[in-house]
């Protein structure tokens, strides 16, 4: 225990450097801005700040990205409330009650509720992060090559079965990511693979241009398909910016009345975040659904219920803390944002994994402390500068889109100073666009791509140690991980069968 406090003190000291604090603050500002603009995701925001972090220390760079992630989770609240359009997928459920509340003349109350609920969700999430991450890392130190391989299998299976509509497509996405990650050098024998005689491919596809292409470039292409917005037609301004005033006493009263619902939503968000599959987009909807089911006034949901806003925003902020747990403890990203962060660590020469907590406590515990600081900064900035932010929602897409594309190209280029990486971004952007159009899961692809070296190295080590495949099922931790993977697949089929039965029942009732 005393060791924990010592390590945490190291983290606090490392984070408290002025440069790190300032970077985190800038990240929060950028995150809120990116989060509030419909069509731009938090992942895109993290990717956009990435090239700027290459000149920073690892902690400073990751803190900036944590700031973007935390700020972005709250930023989506603004457009969800004022425009009825979620700024990010993690604020979809906020539109259900935030927008109606704003339309009836209470936009400030909606934003105030969401902001404070976000803070509470983030704070409770931070407590869980601080307790769970070191414990999970300790657990991870017991992992052998069988366990690591089973963990990769579990991660991809969970994403494939829990977040998409088709298990087969989810697994295909994960396998495709793994296959494309084998391009380049064999991680153990260094033999070139699938280079087609092109020396640029000797090092394989760099992770960051792949990620920028998949999540930023392809997302922008999808946004372009909304032709009305791309042509710069003005969005309907529902609420005058000057009318946004937060009634603090009313907001605090609402928060107190919905305190149990808020805590439960927070726990839902944390759990979703810890599972390496789902992210904020699922957490806020699930938490909203739970809040409605347990509310004394479910009929008010969808009409401007404070509880609805509180549940959604508490969950979408706590999920960021949950995502950091497996990322810091095991080196397995909880979502695309943490995948970018882990990629950034690799660029800085830091290897994520269970040893990070002990070998780099300044970094691991610094990030944890930084999450709390970012949550506090977001609360202050959102409450103080709400009217300034509200104006930024209306920046036209025809200005933003080309700017973002330029930053994406720059981000891909600065990694290795190669034009080839921009072409990689282009190619994977096309692939990502194609995948999303045909309901293939991008997170599954990214996870497969990122974790392929871990899977390959550990599978080979396991088989070289012993050719007995039953060890994957007889070693307790490995068996547990494989069992969880099987449960995830089983749950997918269970939900499918249940949906089919419900559909048959309703069709039969309609015919009758």
């Amino acid at each position, binding site marked *: 225990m005393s060791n924990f406090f010592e390590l945490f003190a190291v983290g606090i000291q490392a984070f408290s450097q002025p440069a790190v604090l300032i970077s985190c603050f800038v990240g929060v500002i950028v995150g809120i801005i990116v989060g509030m603009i419909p069509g731009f995701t938090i992942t895109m925001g993290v990717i956009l700040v990435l090239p700027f972090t*290459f000149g920073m220390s690892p902690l400073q760079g990751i803190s900036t990205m944590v700031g973007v992630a935390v700020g972005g989770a709250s930023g989506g609240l603004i457009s969800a409330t004022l425009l009825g359009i979620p700024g990010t997928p993690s604020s979809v459920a906020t539109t259900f009650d935030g927008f109606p509340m704003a339309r009836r003349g209470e936009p400030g109350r909606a934003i105030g509720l969401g902001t404070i609920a976000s803070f509470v969700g983030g704070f409770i999430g931070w407590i869980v992060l601080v307790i769970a991450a070191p414990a999970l890392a300790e657990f991870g130190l017991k992992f052998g090559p069988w366990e690591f391989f089973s963990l990769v299998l579990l991660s991809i299976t969970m994403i494939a079965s829990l977040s998409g509509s088709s298990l*087969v497509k989810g697994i295909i996405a994960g396998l*495709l990511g793994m296959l494309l990650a084998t391009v380049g050098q064999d991680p153990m024998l260094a033999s070139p693979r699938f280079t087609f005689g092109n020396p640029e491919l000797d090092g394989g596809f760099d992770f960051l241009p792949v990620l920028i292409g998949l999540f930023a470039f392809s997302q922008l292409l999808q946004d372009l398909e909304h032709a009305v917005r791309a042509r710069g037609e003005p969005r309907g301004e529902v609420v005058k910016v000057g009318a946004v005033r937060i009634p603090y006493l009313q907001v605090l009263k609402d928060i107190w009345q919905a305190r149990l619902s808020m805590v439960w939503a927070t726990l839902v968000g944390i759990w979703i975040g810890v599972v390496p599959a789902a992210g904020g987009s699922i957490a806020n909807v699930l938490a909203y659904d739970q809040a409605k089911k347990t509310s004394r006034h479910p009929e008010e949901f969808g009409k401007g219920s404070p509880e609805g806003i509180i549940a959604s925003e508490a969950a979408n902020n706590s999920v960021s803390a949950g995502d950091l747990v497996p990322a810091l403890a095991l080196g397995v990203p909880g979502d695309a944002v943490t995948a970018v962060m882990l990629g950034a660590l690799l660029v800085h020469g830091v290897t994520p994994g269970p040893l990070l907590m002990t070998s780099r406590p300044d970094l691991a515990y610094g990030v944890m402390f930084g999450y709390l600081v970012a949550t506090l900064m977001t609360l202050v900035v959102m409450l103080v500068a709400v009217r300034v932010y509200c104006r930024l929602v209306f920046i*036209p897409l025809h200005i933003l889109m080309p700017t973002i594309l330029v930053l994406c190209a720059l981000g891909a280029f*600065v990694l290795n100073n190669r034009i080839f990486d921009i072409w990689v971004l282009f190619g994977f952007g096309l692939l990502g666009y194609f995948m999303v159009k045909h309901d293939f899961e991008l997170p599954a692809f990214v996870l497969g791509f990122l974790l392929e070296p871990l899977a390959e190295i550990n599978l080979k080590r396991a088989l*070289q140690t012993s050719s007995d495949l039953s060890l994957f099922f007889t070693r307790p931790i490995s068996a547990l991980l494989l069992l969880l993977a099987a449960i995830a697949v089983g749950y997918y089929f269970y939900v499918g069968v249940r949906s089919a039965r419900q559909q048959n029942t309703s069709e039969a009732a309609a015919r009758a």
Partner: protein
Amino acid sequence: MSDRAIGLLLLVFCGVMWSQTYAIRTPPFAQFQQLDSPFFPRLIIILLAICSAILLVRGSGRLVPAGGPATVIRVVREGRDVLVTLALFAAYVLAMPVIGYVPATTLYLVAMQLYLQPRGPMGIALVVLLSAVGSYALALVFTQFLHVVLPRGEF
């Protein structure tokens, strides 16, 4: 594109990648290892091929679009904005090493903004000015403060 067509495409891709695994050379010191360099990619390709076959057999839709060329033309028309964006971006990346980062970025920003939102002469002038200033400022930040070398062009 239908799921079945995608399944077929993936199977073809698996075939190509499988054939490429025979071009992977294991280093002399690892010649007697059972788990050589092609091992893991082949495992992934086999699993991918199985899933692709499932998609081909159980997926929905036709292998060939019902309307034939007319469907393709319709899809191209509907995706015009995306195609133009892709073409402009490709032109931008091709131009960058030739004319340099700042000119290429300026031209790209101007072209994209004017395509997405056509304007009159004054608007065009403003777009050109702001794009040039923005491109130069961005290059300045990265070259002077972050010490990144950006393409300078061949001239």
